[in-house]
């Protein structure tokens, strides 16, 4: 479980996060949504320790990040898996080497044990023939799956995903969404996803946090988002005719 208490973050004179508080529960897919510039990425990067909030605390299962010593912070980071927007796979490494990289860096396992684990997670993300290919030789959807495999290879407690569906076709996007949800439940991970893909919200939004201008404007489940009359959420989520009709149909039922 990740607990955020009243965090504030500024860049120069501009305050990006204005007292955001929430709880991201374990075993759930927690989504951060909002328009561009609403502070989603800054919030995610604050959770990752890339940005340091000026005010407030972030605690990982009771461990307050800002109170940890640097070696404790490093240890905590090994419990984090991250899926970057573009995959962020290492160009010079094969798929297999990319996935095995965290194990090579942080465990003393021999290469056979590492390979077994790599094979297992690649099979889990339904990639069995790509071991020796370079990231440039596989499709965007496959790259995302390799990135998920790399994120989960070291059995993380926390999984962060930044726009996991950007640049993917609808089929692959749904596949990635389902994979993230399955992995979250299977490994009982605290998953936090930064997205503005409404399909993801409808598919896997177990806990949705809506940010507007750096303020938490609304929080709820995907079922609650259909019924909300919060204007900011309605304007953002139901800006397309398709989702308006989906909402109308849902409310009629």
């Amino acid at each position: 479980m990740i607990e955020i208490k009243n965090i504030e973050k500024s860049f120069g004179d501009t305050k990006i996060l204005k007292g955001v508080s929430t709880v991201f529960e374990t075993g759930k897919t927690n989504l951060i949504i909002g328009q561009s510039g609403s502070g989603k990425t800054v919030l995610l990067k604050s959770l990752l320790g890339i940005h340091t909030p000026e005010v407030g605390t972030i605690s990982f299962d009771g461990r307050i990040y800002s109170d940890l010593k640097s070696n404790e912070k490093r240890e905590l980071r090994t419990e984090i898996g991250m899926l970057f927007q573009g995959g962020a796979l290492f160009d010079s490494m094969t798929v297999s080497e990319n996935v095995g990289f965290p194990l090579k860096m942080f465990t003393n396992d021999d290469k056979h044990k590492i390979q077994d684990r790599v094979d297992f997670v690649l099979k889990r993300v339904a990639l069995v023939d790509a071991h020796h290919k370079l990231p440039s030789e596989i499709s965007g959807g496959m790259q995302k799956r390799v990135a998920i495999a790399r994120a989960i290879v070291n059995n993380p407690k926390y999984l962060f995903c930044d726009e996991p569906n950007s640049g993917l076709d609808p089929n692959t996007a749904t596949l990635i969404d389902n994979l993230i949800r399955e992995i979250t439940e299977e490994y009982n991970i605290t998953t936090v996803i930064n997205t503005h893909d409404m399909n993801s919200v409808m598919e896997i939004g177990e806990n949705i946090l809506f940010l507007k201008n750096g303020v938490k404007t609304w929080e709820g489940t995907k079922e609650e988002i259909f019924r909300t009359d919060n204007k900011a959420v309605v304007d953002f989520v139901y800006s397309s005719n398709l989702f308006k009709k989906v909402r109308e149909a849902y409310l009629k039922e």
Partner: protein
Amino acid sequence: MMLLRYLSQIGKYFLMWKEIFRKQTKWSVMKNLIFKEIDELIIDSLGIVAFISVFVGGVVAIQTALNLDNPLIPKNLIGYATRESVILEFSPTFISIVMAGKMGSFITSSIGSMRVTEQIDALEVMGINSLNYLVFPKLIAIILYPFVIGISMFLGVFGGYIATVYGGFGTSIDFINGVQSDFMPFHVTYAFIKTFIFGILLASVPSFHGYYMKGGALEVGKASTVAFVWTSVLIIFVNYLLTQLLLT
């Protein structure tokens, strides 16, 4: 304002050095990274260094020979002048500037591309000291840079010999006599001291520009150009300082 920006960049450059040595990457991983960098930075540079050295050594010899109008000046001056030019300036300084283009732009663009594609963020999120992981192996590989310059010195003088003897500007004996006359071992020491310092600049300045770049693919190109300019400027400046310190 501009001065403040430069000062801040200089401060950031020295802080980068501190960070490079802060938290070491596991040796079993680092070892492979060092070998990879030796291959990419040192071995891959040998071809172009050999080519330039032979031909520029030849040009130095020919130009010296063409300027020897006075019959009282001994012909062995061609070998002497070639040796001095190649060892004192051409190999350490000229080749280092060429390497600022070849090796430096490779370093900036490879690290810069990693920054743009969030690979550096990925390393940091995993709890890896990305500066140590990316820059330290380059600094270790660059320890072998004086060997490249040693080869360049030999080939430069060899190029001078070929141009002199086969171009009909002097005899083999004259050239070899010239190369051997008034030899000062300290000049070689001076050249290698310079080379070592230039090597550190060649690895660290382009790494700095690649690591701290912001923006997209276009900015990677711009960062490579800026890195080349600054590495060259620093090499020329440090060359002057070291010459003043060591040879006067």
